[in-house]
């Protein structure tokens, strides 16, 4: 469980470019939750998750993970970081080893695991993100963009963290690669039972994956709750320069046109089921 209380962070404090990036954040995430974070560019999403991952030290306030306070006196930060997987935006920039295998093994090696365990984890992580064994022997710099991204994510997954944080993991990928990565993330969440925090620009992705949503606006939490609670507030989201998922918009228009579609439909599969129900009822008549 992660708990943030009254967390503040300011970049370059004291200088002419001072920027309060997150302000008075209070947030509690439960173990095993899939949390989606949305907000327009510059709203403080990346800063917030870097604070959660212990990569930035809050100016004030407290962050704790499973009872251990980040940057607390009794906390071994390096040990604690092994339990937190952090996939930054454009993670392919972190690749540096001679082979993909060695690069994925970098994290587990730092943890001081045995050779066999490292091997097992590398193969497990590679399989989880969908990289073939033959790629493991190649140089990371000769892979395609999507493969690089997956290799970088595997490097984090191989540490088998209890908490996995991802910053826009699909940015800059084609639709095919995007869906595949999201599918793998959903798999990991289900199979390993870990807590996942996902930052994304795509309402569709968040709507179909997350069971809790946090909406950031100007460094503050504007809304938090289940997808139902969030997407009901279409007007408020619009105000913040965000949109509801397209399918939710379609359902709303259909409802206005007189079709009996219930509220709270924001995934394509749910909308499909409802529409089929309506069509069947029509056929019967």
């Amino acid at each position: 469980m992660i708990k943030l209380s009254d967390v503040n962070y300011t970049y370059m404090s004291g200088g002419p470019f001072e920027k309060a990036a997150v302000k008075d954040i209070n947030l509690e995430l439960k173990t095993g939750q899939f949390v989606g974070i949305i907000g327009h560019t510059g709203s403080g999403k990346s800063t917030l998750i870097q604070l959660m991952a212990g990569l930035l030290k809050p100016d004030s306030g407290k962050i704790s993970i499973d009872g251990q306070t980040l940057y607390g006196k009794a906390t071994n930060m390096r040990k604690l970081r092994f339990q937190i997987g952090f996939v930054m935006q454009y993670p392919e920039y972190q690749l540096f080893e001679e082979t993909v295998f060695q690069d994925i093994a970098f994290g587990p090696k730092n943890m001081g695991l045995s050779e066999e365990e490292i091997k097992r984890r590398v193969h497990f992580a590679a399989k989880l993100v969908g990289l073939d064994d033959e790629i493991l022997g190649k140089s990371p710099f000769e892979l395609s963009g999507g493969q690089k991204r997956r290799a970088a994510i595997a490097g984090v997954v191989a540490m088998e963290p209890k908490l996995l944080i991802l910053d826009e993991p699909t940015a800059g990928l084609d639709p095919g690669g995007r869906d595949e990565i999201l599918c793998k993330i959903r798999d990991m969440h289900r199979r390993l039972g870990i807590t996942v925090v996902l930052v994304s620009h795509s309402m569709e992705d968040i709507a179909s994956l997350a069971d809790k949503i946090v909406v950031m606006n100007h460094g503050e939490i504007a809304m938090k709750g289940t997808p139902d609670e969030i997407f009901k507030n279409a007007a408020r989201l619009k105000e913040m320069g965000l949109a509801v998922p397209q399918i939710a918009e379609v359902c709303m228009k259909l409802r206005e046109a007189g079709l009996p579609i219930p509220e709270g439909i924001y995934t394509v599969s749910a909308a499909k089921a409802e529409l089929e129900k309506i069509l069947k009822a029509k056929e019967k008549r």
Partner: protein
Amino acid sequence: MLKDITLGQYFPGNSLIHRLDPRTKILCIILYITVIFCVKNFWGYGVLAAFTAICIISSKIPFGYVIKGVKPILIFVIFTALFNLFLTNGRVLWSWGFLKITYEGVRLAAFMVLRLFFLVLGTSLLTLTTSPIALTDGIEKLLSPFKKIGVPAHELAMMMTIALRFVPTLLEETEKIIKAQTARGADFESGNIINRAKAMIPILIPLFVSAFRRADDLAVAMECRCYRGGENRTRLKELKMTTADIWGWLFVTVLAVLVFTSNILL
């Protein structure tokens, strides 16, 4: 960390000093540095301090911010002072074993510290009040008379502009990569020197890869826009000297005259 370095940073503003022509500022700084190394007594340093204070106040940059520029070289200043203090021969004031402090040593140490201090303050003030673009424009203009004897003024200025342009980008990138590798459990602090040097590899390789990629992209982008060096290129903003520059010149000349007369008279 990296972001605490103010030396070489630009502090945007619209003060009198900000508006001076970069050529004026560069030449004045050269004269200022010459003066620093010619001062022979404490009266001279008094004049220098007053002059520097007036400049900082009129630049409207917080005093503490300018002083912060001295921090990175503090160790260097302290060592210089200690060497001069203990290793100068002359009238002995105090001695203990092989250590001795002389009157000349104290004087020399104080002078050295003051010189370095004013040197950093002056140059910080130049970079804090002049945008990198203006600075390189000024250098290009100042060097252009030497084109005839083969000094590639435009190319030098362009190289400087590009290098300055990429300093913040690379710093940002370094910080990002450090974060990513820290999250993967990289350890930069413990172990002996060799281990620590090895720990830099996961940072340096991605940094080089991305720097080369950026350089390549930039070269292509410049070529796409038909860049072909400085021949016949015109500019949007021509540098112009104003009355403010004349006052600037007068001010520095007065400083130089005061210091040199104090050297002779006192």
